[in-house]
Structures are given as structure tokens and as C-alpha cells.
């Protein structure tokens, strides 16, 4: 049975897919979110729509593997292949419900850095924002996907490429940011929510020990018990249907292996 074995990234895709609600317009971007959208629209969210900054607007999974949003299977039988001004305009107007983001570093308020990081006394230059800052500023809510590595969790990011909840509280409102900011973080070990702008542990993936997650954070990580009196749950495992779909959309495990 498919669900007897799955990779951490396959679990991330299934968790991310569940963050897309039926009827959502999703700004999908690259890599795992692209597959998560395809899973969501094939299962619980048949009326979701995907938009990509290149201009593609799509309502169903592509009929071939995608390395990037611009691969031909993503254009084939799309609803529309428009341009960035159009798609970003929808985002700026508030018409995009959920956007997905990744990052090299994240801090306790969900601010993301993909521009430059420190490695010892050296500064390492990363590729930059692309559309991530725009999504972070203007999507109704954002879901962040990251590999769970302690060096990625920092008290304050070196450079705010994509603003999260800034300094917490009503920071986004004060800054004048139109979108709602980070709603969830999905890593290879756990899922997290945001309360008053601050990250908290929501669920541990199966097999991840209590205490194992908190040890990876340089600050005292809050949990759902602290913020809403709910015990930390165990992340739902991917269903057979979800796993079959992930493997159909990523047959060689290029993104999810």
C-alpha cells in the first residue's frame, strides 16, 4: 500500500495541499507548491485556480512533469497564458487567497530571507526575491514550505526579502501591507501556525519525538498548547490517493524524493 512508506517531502506536499481550500485562487510558484496545487485540485479542492507570475492561469493538473512553471505541459490546455502585470495586478487587488513561499532563513515572526545569509564570517549571496516578496506582501494568506534544518531558524533574519509578521502584533497593518501574512509553516518535521504574528508548533510529523522540534529553534518555541490550549497534534499522513497523485505528478521523485 502506498501510504506504508512516504518521503518527508511527500508528506509536506500533502500537508501543503490541505492548506488550499476549495474555490481558492492560489499563487503557486515553484517546486513543492506546484505539486501541492495539483494534488489539491485533484482531491478536495476541484474549484481551486492556480496563477503563476509568468502569466499562466490553470484550473487542472498539467499533463506532464513540471521542472518550472514555464514548462510546456503547464501551458498546454491552461485557462489563460497572460503576463505578469495581469497576474500581479490580481494579487495587488486582493484577489489571490493563498500564496506559497520558501526561504533559506525564517525568524520567529515568519520573515523570510532568500537574498543573503552569513556562513561564519562569510556572506553568501542567494538568488533573491523573484515574486516571493510580492506574494508575501499581498496574498490573502501565505503558507511557507522549508526543509527542517536548525540553521534556517534564526531569531532575526539577516535580510527581510519577504516580510512575514515583522515584529509581531499589528506590524503588518502599521506597515500598510495589504495581505494577511504567514498562516502556516510546513517543514520536513512539523507544521506550525501563527498567533499574534508569532510562530508556534501545531503538529509533529509521525515519528518525530516531542522536544525534538523545539531543540532546533534558538528561541523558546511556543506550541498550540500555549496559544490556544490545544495539544500538539500528529500531522495527518498522506492518504493513498494523495500519494498516488504525488507520484503521478512527480514520477521520478525529482522534487519529492
Amino acid at each position: 500500500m502506498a501510504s506504508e512508506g512516504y518521503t518527508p517531502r511527500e508528506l509536506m506536499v500533502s500537508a501543503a495541499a490541505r492548506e488550499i481550500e476549495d474555490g481558492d485562487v492560489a499563487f503557486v510558484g515553484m517546486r513543492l507548491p506546484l505539486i501541492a496545487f495539483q494534488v489539491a485540485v485533484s482531491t478536495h479542492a476541484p474549484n481551486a485556480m492556480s496563477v503563476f507570475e509568468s502569466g499562466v492561469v490553470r484550473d487542472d493538473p498539467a499533463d506532464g512533469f513540471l521542472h518550472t512553471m514555464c514548462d510546456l505541459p503547464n501551458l498546454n490546455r491552461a485557462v489563460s497564458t497572460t503576463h505578469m502585470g495581469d497576474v500581479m495586478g490580481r494579487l495587488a487587488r486582493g484577489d489571490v487567497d493563498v500564496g506559497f513561499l520558501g526561504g533559506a532563513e525564517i525568524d520567529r515572526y515568519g520573515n523570510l530571507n532568500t537574498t543573503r545569509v552569513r556562513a561564519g564570517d562569510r556572506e553568501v549571496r542567494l538568488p533573491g526575491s523573484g515574486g516571493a516578496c510580492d506574494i508575501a506582501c499581498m496574498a490573502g494568506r501565505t503558507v511557507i514550505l522549508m526543509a527542517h534544518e536548525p540553521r534556517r531558524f534564526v531569531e532575526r533574519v539577516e535580510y527581510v526579502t519577504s516580510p512575514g509578521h515583522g515584529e509581531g502584533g499589528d506590524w503588518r497593518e502599521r506597515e500598510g501591507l495589504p495581505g494577511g501574512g504567514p498562516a502556516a509553516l510546513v517543514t520536513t518535521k512539523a507544521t506550525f501556525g501563527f498567533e499574534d504574528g508569532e510562530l508556534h508548533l501545531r503538529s509533529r510529523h509521525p515519528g518525530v519525538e516531542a522536544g525534538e522540534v523545539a531543540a532546533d529553534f534558538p528561541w523558546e518555541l511556543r506550541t498550540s498548547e500555549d496559544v490556544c490550549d490545544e495539544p500538539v497534534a500528529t500531522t495527518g499522513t498522506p492518504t493513498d490517493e494523495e500519494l498516488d497523485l504525488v507520484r503521478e505528478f512527480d514520477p521520478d521523485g525529482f522534487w519529492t524524493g
Partner: protein
Amino acid sequence: MPRDKTTGMAEAVSRMDAGSSVAAGLALEHAVPFAAGHELVRQGIDDLTLVGPISDVLFDQLVGAGLVSRIRAAWIGNVSAGSGYNFRRAVEGGALEVENHSNLSVSLALRAASMGVPYLPTRSLLGSDIAAEPQFEVAEDPFEGQRVVQVPAIAPDWAVVHVQRAAPTGDAHLWGNAGITYEAVRAADHVLVTAEEVVDESVIKSDPSRTRITREQVDAVVEVPFGAHPSPVAGHYDRDNEFFLEYAEATRDGFDEWADEWIHGVDGREEYRGLIDRDLSVTEPTVAAEVRYGQ
């Protein structure tokens, strides 16, 4: 303005001066004008300022060849592999100035130039360190008092655009993802169109809704089949992902050996094409339903 602007790649690219600003890679990962970029490397036209959203290793190659002084872009790397190593080395070594943008801010900067206005406002970038960079100004809008980021216009000297088909006049069809192509073409002082096919003007006029570039903006038209490889061109060939992965490996510690093989070692695009043995052809063409214009 001459009606026939077709010319060879070497001649067209030689019209660009050292010190120019060049916008390219405007349709994101789609139809990146690699053939034109390789000709820039061959001719060694340097001190360039590159403008674009993301460039998917074209900018990395121009940086590796030592041609670039400044980049104004949202993302510079290799979409399949992550980092662009030439870019990384150049920035970390202090040899390259970067003006950080988001995709939307590049788009707005070109849009502003295309409209002849000095800047356009956005509520994106607020609260980011991008907005804090010197090229932007955070301001209050005079009507409702909202905070906005003012994005100054960028008018490149050249925009280089790869399309499926163009007439000798410069009127061109392009379909699939357009990214920020339209803004850049209208913002630039000069436009080089490279095309999979040069076609008769009557082909363009048979479907005017697909015409995205018109002649008065175009300086040169170059026919160059396979001109965007390893990026995809809708209707012609798919992305050569392996090539991007191999490029990352080959340029992790240097660029010259790669450039000797793929740029200096080939006499133009036809010879380059002969080095690719992967099948990237479109196996099941999807053909649009007939469009009727009538009269």
C-alpha cells in the same frame, strides 16, 4: 525606417555598445534569448547593466564572461539547480553591483518607463529590506494617505526578446508566458527580436490578436531556430532540464571551460544545436481552434 530589418546575429549584437543597459529573460523561464547572449559573450561587449525579473542562467553566463558591472533584477540563479555560481562569486568578490527588486517592482519600473512617467507606486515591498534599498522611496499617497513604495522608471537601452515568429518588419507573434516582455519592449530605446521563424507579414496579419510587438519599436530581426535552448519555446521545444543541472556542475568552480565548449567553441547556433542529442521536440502538438476575424 526600413521595412526589412532582418540581419545576422553577429551584426545585430554588434550594434550594442559597451556600457549599455540590456533587458532580457523577460518571459521568466520561457524563451530566454540565449543565442543573443552567447553572441554578446563572443563579441566581449562589456560594462553592461542587466535588467530582468529572473533570468535562469543567462545573466549568470554574462557575469561569468566578465561583461556585467551591474544587475537590476528580482532573482539571479539557476531555476533547476538553485544557485548561479558565477553570479555568487562576482557578488561575494565585490565585482558586481546588485540592485535588488521583486518581480513586480521590475515590472513596474519598466511599465513606468513605457508610460513616460517617473515612477509607479505599489503596496508590495513594504516592510521588506528591498524597499529600504536606495533606489526606492517609501511615501504616503496624497489621496488616501496609504503607505506606498515608489518604484522609479527603468528605460533600458536594449530589450532582447525571443519569439516564435516575426515578420521582417519586426511585427511579432509570441504566445505562452509573456512575463514582463510587453513592458520591457515598450520601455527600451532599442529592441532586438530573435525568432524561431521569420515569416511573411501576411502570417502576422492573419492573427493580429497574437501580435505582441510592432515594428516601430524594433531595430533588428534575427532568425535563429533553437535560439532559446535550454529554455523552452511553446510549440517548438521543451525545457532541457538536464542542461541546467549539468551547467550548475560545470560552473561550480569556474566558467571558462564551459564557455570554451558551448560559446567560443561553436560557430553560431547551428553548430551549437549539433551538440545537443536529447529529444526536446514537442511530441503532441496542441493546436488552437480556428480564430475568425471576418470583415
